[in-house]
């Protein structure tokens, strides 16, 4: 049983290591999705939010980890 729990823990760990980073990435994707729905005529706006959002999230998370 422990081995299975261990394996499942390892599987989630493939994608989520720092919970704050994972949540921030999902929030950026959600924001881009909302923009894509609200502004279907300007699809690149969602793309720009996605690119800038992901890069910002990365820098902010690294800076926070470095301060800890």
């Amino acid at each position, binding site marked *: 049983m422990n081995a299975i729990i261990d394996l499942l823990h390892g599987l989630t760990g*493939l994608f*989520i290591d720092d919970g704050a980073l*994972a949540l921030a*990435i999902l929030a950026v994707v959600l924001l881009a999705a909302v923009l894509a729905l609200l502004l279907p005529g300007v699809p690149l706006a*969602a793309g720009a939010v*996605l690119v800038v959002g992901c890069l910002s999230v990365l*820098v902010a998370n*690294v800076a926070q980890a*470095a301060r800890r």
Partner: protein
Amino acid sequence: MTWIAAAPALSAAFVSSLVEAVEALTIVLAVASVRGWRPAGLGAAAGLALLIVIVLALGPLLDRVPLYLLQLTIGILLLLFGMRWLRKAILRAAGVIPLHDETTAFAAETAELREQARRHEARLDWLAGLASFKAVVLEGLEVVFIVIAIGAGRGMLVPASIGAVAACGLVAVAGFAMHRPLARVPENTLKFAVGILLSAFGVSWTGEGLGVPWPGEDLAILAFAALFLVVALAAVALARRPHAQALP
């Protein structure tokens, strides 16, 4: 399909899989050094068999999933997976967390198995085989995910698979010939590069899943990779601790 078209998928899958294969090999070698090749080999073979079953079962399902849904799902998973790698590689390069060292990982795994040997002598072969199995399954699933993420939906599954199989084969041959962990592989540099590539693929796929028509189509991935590289290097400088080693 030309080699020029297939080269990015093949090389991205090769480099990503190389890192995973090195990590799996370290644990399999640690098991072999403590309990011999039988449990290590049986565990690894069982892990490989499970991976083959997973690929055979899930592979045909990929064609049935609508393309936008596949792009969005894999794109989000790629962002989570790639940015997690990139974050860790940045923090390691900046000296905030220690560099991953295969020799240390090998020593830690060996020590843990010896400790288990002291406590559960009778069950040790089983425990050792399980450690080998788990390493192959977890690292192998990462390889499978990388191959799907890089290749699916673009007709690049075959070159991505060739890249992954070549990397795993190369690591297996080198590791079993030397009988020690491949400590000289510049793992953090590879993870840094792979994190950038996977994050760039993730942005591209997620955007396409949301209906974003990227200028230049697939060429946009190169632009995203360049952006991630510049920002990641800036983040290393921002987070750098005194006495941290420069990125090799």
